[in-house]
């Protein structure tokens, strides 16, 4: 089925939710509200006409510097593909700035788990109902979400844990230059079993 037809069907079925449909180079994106995103995606996945069984990509976008009528501050983009029927569609769910959260789709595809964690980590959109929403690529004590437009490309501050790490390196240097961690392991062995390396 053509992507435009699918978009029309989604619009018929979820009239309240669909805000706009846009077409670019033959790829159709449907801009929707965030409230019923799980229902929309479940319908797209299970309906025999669409069978969108492969979640290709999920990512967050910051719309701060982007012009658009129906755009809120953030959006979560779902790229879906149907392996049996060979068509694709894109769903763009709008997320407001004051409450940057959306329902999780890990109930539909458990592979969305890491996609959503990445989106939370880098864009700061939280996913309600996600089983394990933690930072994934950045350290756990990182402040801020780098892919937001106000986040600078080159920051002035160091990572908060860096000083601690440098102290640790200095502390460990007495056990031998370079591979401090290996030497502490040996030291523990020496203390316990009295083995000398």
């Amino acid at each position, binding site marked *: 089925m053509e992507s435009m037809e699918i978009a029309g069907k989604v619009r018929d079925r979820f009239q309240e939710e669909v805000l706009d449909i846009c077409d670019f*180079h033959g790829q159709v994106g449907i801009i929707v509200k965030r409230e019923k995103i799980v229902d929309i995606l479940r319908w797209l996945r299970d309906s025999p006409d669409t069978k969108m069984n492969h979640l290709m*990509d999920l990512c967050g976008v910051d719309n701060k510097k982007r012009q658009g009528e129906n755009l809120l501050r953030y959006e979560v983009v779902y790229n879906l593909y149907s*392996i049996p029927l060979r068509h694709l569609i894109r769903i763009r769910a709008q997320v407001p700035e004051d409450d940057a959260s959306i329902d999780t789709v890990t109930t*539909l595809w*458990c592979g969305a788990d890491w996609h959503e964690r990445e989106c939370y980590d*880098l864009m700061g959109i939280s996913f309600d109902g996600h089983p394990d929403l933690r930072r994934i*690529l950045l350290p756990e004590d990182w402040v801020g979400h780098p*892919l937001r437009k106000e986040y600078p490309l080159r920051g002035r501050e160091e990572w908060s844990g860096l000083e601690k790490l440098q102290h640790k390196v200095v502390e460990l240097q007495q056990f031998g230059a370079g591979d401090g961690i290996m030497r502490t392991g040996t030291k523990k062995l020496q203390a316990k079993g009295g083995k000398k390396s």
Partner: protein
Amino acid sequence: MTRPITKTVEVPVADGDIEVYSLKMGPQHPATHGVLRVDLELDGETILKCTPHVGYLHRGFDKIAENRTYPQSLILTDRLDYIAAMANNVGYCVAVEKLLGISVPLRAKYIRTIVSEMSRISSHLLWLATHALDIGAMTVFLYCFREREVMLDLFEELCGARLTFSYPRIGGVRQDVTYNFVDVLQRFVADFPGHIEEYETLIDTNRIWLKRTVGIGVLSADEALELGLTGACLRGSGVDYDIRKHRPYDAYDLIDFEVPISDDGDIYARYRCRMEELHQSARIIQQCLDQLPPGPIISKDAPDLLMPLHGKRKLAPGSSTYGTGLIRILDEKEDLPQGDIYVSTEVPKGELGFYFISDGSGRPYRMHVRSPSFIHIGALPALVEGSMIADLIANIGTLDVVLGECDR
């Protein structure tokens, strides 16, 4: 229908004698193929819980790309999957070409198909070598590296680099192939099926290999789909999904090849799929070399390496760098299309997708890389929980992950 993927494991809670043993494997473990840390909770040798930790190689690819022009970001893609950098370059170029609406000359399409398949061979050989080494078959490693060396030498002859190529350009390729390149590659492709048989005699019916792989890490088709696996991991579970066939790019719609599929879904099935892919890659290269058409190698519309924020300047025909995709001076304004696009290609690891949002300037407003390794490592707990700790090594090997691509 959603069904729980995580296998149920009987955790002996009430028994006071049994203690859950926690083990941190990595980030500097030789079998994790890079800097992957896996936190394990063990009951004896059975894995109760597996938590992978990634991000040690995170370089902020998405953020950097937002502040560079499209051609400038090309060199970043080398650093994603450094085992098959050429396939990443081609994937990026295909995506940007579709966004900017550039049509590529036929000869360039064929050359890019050849180099993509060469990188698939080189990547699969490295996978086979290390996977066999992890499981304990040392000899395969040496044989695989013998053939991989030929591939790297050919790449070196083509563009001067052995690992990070940046050889394809948006709109074509940088240089034409040489006679010697075609000659050596012809001979390699003729000999290669014989070499694959050599590897197969070493491990295909080897009893230890079979014990370590058959029936281990089984995923059904539904489970693999739901986990988002792509590439040989998905085809090993019996799902016919190959982007070269589903959404053909470059010259793949002009070439006759098959997509190997296995229904078993275990490590051995994925191994067989990849071995068959090696045969098919050789076949594709053979056909491309036979059909290689004459003509230009880069489009006249190709943006320059020094693409400005708005548009480009077109030099008059006859000037020295006209139409070569090399550096030109820029001042003419030309608006780029506005919109968003998702284009994916089949790289050796699976589906590599690029999602671009263009706001009409020379830099992407937002760029997101869907890297197969990231999703594959996310699927690791579903594969290993409930199995033995020794199978973890085999399972990491069968997913064929590269951490540079995972962390981006």
